[in-house]
């Protein structure tokens, strides 16, 4: 999604006499920052107007949003904690998007990953905690990965639309979670809140030292960077993008599209499964219905806002984490209902999608010509 070598060479070749212009060289990259940024600002302006119509001062609104999301160290940690699961679940949509697939079932992979990770921890009651944690990571990723592979397989071998199947698999995952938590895996002592037994305090992965942001954030950043490298810097990623661009051409040049689909779906599900593992090992300490908190669905929004770019997912998740962190302050200080944050998310979504039309049309940013 960036300018890359060809364009740079081009620009260098042309530039000696003409003004070498930063924009000329990096125009397309700048576009990718400027246009979504402008869309975000426009969305905030519209939201301000909306809030003004409800008789609240928009300046207060912006100030509280800033304070609640990034105004203090506490607020930063609040935003980052909320961003952590979103980075991982967004990858579940962004990776298959490279192949032109629209997978929206990250929530299901998260739940299955969380269940698998809990199962792994409970199966190893006396193992050293590092072993348990490693087993939980593997189980979570495997569980989530296989779950999304189901959608990939249905699409590749049975022609089932992957968007529908991945969404429906969310409800199946939820039913499996409820069944296991209320039945076979239930801790008999969890009377009014059916839950599995706890994985034990020693097996919890805790927070990044010096913060109270859990390790899920680091997992997310690593997964996002690794995905970026995989997609843009490896032949495998190149093959995936070719298949995403034109699946027939990919087949003609001899790419194994089936394997590409299955691998990418596995990786996508694995990252959402890892998010589920983190929810168990860093937050809840056990599996129960609390896990179905909608991170998988918000991840779809993050992936689309990031235009399916794995690196862009990181800042977008932090911005959305910040919006949700500031939501509480808006409720408390301005008396806005919770739904107002959803309204804002909706406005941002519409603006960012609409801003797609602007790429390559802003005169001074036209790098190549």
């Amino acid at each position, binding site marked *: 999604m960036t300018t890359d070598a060809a364009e740079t060479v081009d620009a260098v070749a042309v530039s000696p006499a003409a003004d070498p212009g930063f924009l000329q060289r990096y125009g397309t990259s700048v576009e990718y920052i400027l246009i979504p940024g402008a869309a975000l600002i426009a969305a905030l302006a519209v939201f301000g107007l909306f809030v003004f119509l409800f008789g609240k001062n928009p300046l207060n609104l912006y100030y509280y949003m800033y*304070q609640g999301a990034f105004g203090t160290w506490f607020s930063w940690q609040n935003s980052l904690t*909320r961003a952590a699961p979103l980075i991982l679940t967004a990858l579940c949509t962004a990776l298959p998007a490279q192949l032109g697939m629209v997978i929206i079932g990250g929530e299901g992979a998260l739940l299955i990953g969380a269940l698998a990770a809990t199962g792994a921890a409970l199966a190893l009651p006396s193992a050293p905690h590092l072993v348990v944690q490693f087993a939980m990571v593997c189980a979570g990723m495997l569980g989530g990965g296989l779950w999304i592979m189901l959608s990939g397989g249905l699409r590749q071998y049975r022609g089932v639309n992957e968007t529908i199947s991945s969404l429906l698999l969310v409800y199946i995952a939820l039913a499996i979670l409820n069944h296991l938590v209320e039945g076979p895996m239930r801790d008999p002592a969890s009377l*009014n809140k059916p839950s599995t037994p706890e994985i034990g305090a020693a097996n919890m992965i805790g927070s990044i030292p010096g913060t109270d942001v859990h390790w899920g954030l680091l997992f997310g950043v690593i997964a996002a960077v690794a995905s970026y490298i995989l997609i843009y810097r490896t032949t495998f990623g190149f093959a995936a993008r070719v298949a995403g661009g034109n699946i027939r051409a990919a087949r003609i040049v001899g790419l194994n599209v089936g394997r590409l689909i299955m691998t990418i779906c596995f990786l996508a599900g694995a990252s959402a499964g890892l998010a589920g593992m983190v929810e168990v090992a860093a937050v809840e*300490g056990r599996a129960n219905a*609390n896990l179905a*908190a909608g991170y998988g669905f918000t991840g779809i929004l993050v992936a689309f806002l990031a235009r399916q770019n794995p690196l862009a997912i990181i800042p977008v998740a932090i911005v959305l984490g910040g919006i949700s*962190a500031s939501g*509480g302050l808006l409720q408390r*200080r301005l*008396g806005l209902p919770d739904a107002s944050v959803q309204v804002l998310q909706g406005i941002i979504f519409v603006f960012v999608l609409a801003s797609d039309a602007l790429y390559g049309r802003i005169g001074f940013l036209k790098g190549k010509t």
Partner: protein
Amino acid sequence: MNFRRADFRSITRRHLLQGGAALTLGSALGVRTAAAADMTIGFIYVGSRDDYGYNQAHAQGAAAVKKMAGVSVLEEEKVPETDAVEKTMESMINLDGASLLFPTSFGYYNPHVLKMAAKYPKAHFEHCGGLWTDKDPQNAGSYFGYIDEAQYISGIVAGHMTKSGKLGFVAAKPIPQVLRNINAFTLGARLANPKATTQVIFTGDWSMPVKEAEATNSLIDQGVDVLTCHVDGPKTVVENAARRGAMVCGYHCGQSALAPKAYLTGAEWNWEALYPKFVKMIQAGEKIPNFYRGGLKEEIVKCSPYGEMVSAEARKHADDVKAKLMGGDYTIFAGPIADNKGKTVIASGTNQGQKDPELEKMDYLVEGVLGATS
């Protein structure tokens, strides 16, 4: 305005907005001094505060606290039972200076309230659910009410009013608290009409409006003419039942406004009485017991006022039993009680009073309930 009062505590904000918000700042100085002595209390809800149900009942309690002197109240709704609620509690403490918090959803307690209570030993946490044990932090507490007493009264009224003898119960999950409500409602109904039966339908989760509507319709199609429920927002059941011409008993908070012609009575939380009581205890420097429970007598639960259509006979019967419960010398779960498979669950001569821990583990449906726990 409570919100504004909270606003002006932050000096940095005033600096930043001096230009833009000059108008509003004019009124700030006077309020700020008053606010300095206030106790800031935060209420956290898992759903919307106007859900005509679980969360609205708590919001009514918060509204009662707002009327007290020397307090300022913060509210946040739709906070999920994840680390989001930890951040909400911390945010109320760090950014708003809250010293007393009411995280009102059952699933907030373990691990979230416990974690925050250990992290902020100076703040006080009052959780709704009755989960505190002596291993938990001293600055955390958990309260709950024996709302099955009010369900029992609803049952008596329902038993008198039903013509078909068929009652319906739309329930979320077959967990002890819910089963206890179903059983108490049925025992009450059979006190009035020994042949009455309660058909129960479990929807599987706390807030499933579509399934709740389907369950309501299907119960009425089977001849049920009085319904009640235990879900987070009874609005769907109440409105649908009324539309279909059936009668209803409410739950969580008063719903008679939704269906004045169909609403018989209901089992309500009385947080309006309890929360101000808690705040007064703290203002007076007393300690709120970490584990706090009670029923009608302790004013933690109450019954909705009777609807106009409730017969004099039903009112009298219900009032009599209510008086006995208020007097504290009445046991709902008094043996012999058999479950709906014919097995004796409470032996003859055994009285399981409200505080009996056996009732907390309830896993059966009493005779007269049509349905199964799994």
